[in-house]
């Protein structure tokens, strides 16, 4: 997961890029003809100083290698921003950064 946070006058512009196949469960493998099982991110959240401010849920229609952009208000230098995601197979990742 790549995270880019820019502090613009107390507003954190948070850009998130996750490497993930986002398989719909509808596609067929071209060689074997078998259906590729669904594998997609269901949850994305942002915590600001331990407080959940963004709670996003995705379906299979979110593009492969998902990108998200949110704007969190009332931030100060040194505040922690924690970004987490979790997919339908229970795989998850978190990243904590402090605001510059």
């Amino acid at each position, binding site marked *: 997961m790549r995270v880019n946070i820019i502090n613009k006058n107390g*507003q954190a512009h948070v850009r998130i890029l996750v490497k993930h196949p986002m398989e*719909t469960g*509808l*596609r*067929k493998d*071209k060689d074997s003809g078998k259906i590729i099982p669904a594998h997609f991110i*269901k*949850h994305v*959240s942002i915590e*600001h100083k331990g*407080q*959940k*401010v*963004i*709670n*996003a*849920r*995705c*379906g*299979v*229609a*979110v*593009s*492969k290698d*998902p*990108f*998200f*952009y*949110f*704007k*969190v*208000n*009332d931030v100060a230098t040194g505040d922690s921003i924690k970004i*987490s995601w*979790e997919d339908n197979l*229970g795989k*998850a990742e978190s990243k904590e950064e402090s605001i510059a």
Partner: protein
Amino acid sequence: MQVDLKRRLFLKGSMAAGMATVAAAAGLLTPNVVMAAWPQGAFEAKSLDNALNSLLGSASAAKSHDIKIKAPTIAENGSVVNVVVQTTMPDVESISILAEKNGNPLAFTVDLSKSVDAYVKTRIKLGKTSRVVGVVKSGGKLYSAEQVVKVTVGGCGG
């Protein structure tokens, strides 16, 4: 030797998977405790109205000029369509993005706390030319804005 090693790895892998299933069944692994529930009915709904009803309890969203939806009018590649939904409305509780002509229209929904701008940008897949609808829940009511995105190559095919 090589084959046998692979067999060992496979057995090991399937045992680990089996144990994870058992742990999940016993309630030891409950990832959803940390994350709020995933609205399965809404994401699996086959029509825009059903998805909205299931997600937000109503399918009647008033069109609003205070919501801006930004998406390309023509998408050459339906598998990556940039969508921005933003609004100047107060007390925004959630923003959802739906593509009417997708098999399951609901693509993305986000609950926002008061300390977040009512702004979201992401990328979605469009199977074919479709209305893309941004639905904002503000003060308990639903508002929407939409744009037609013309797709020349679909993003859901095999």
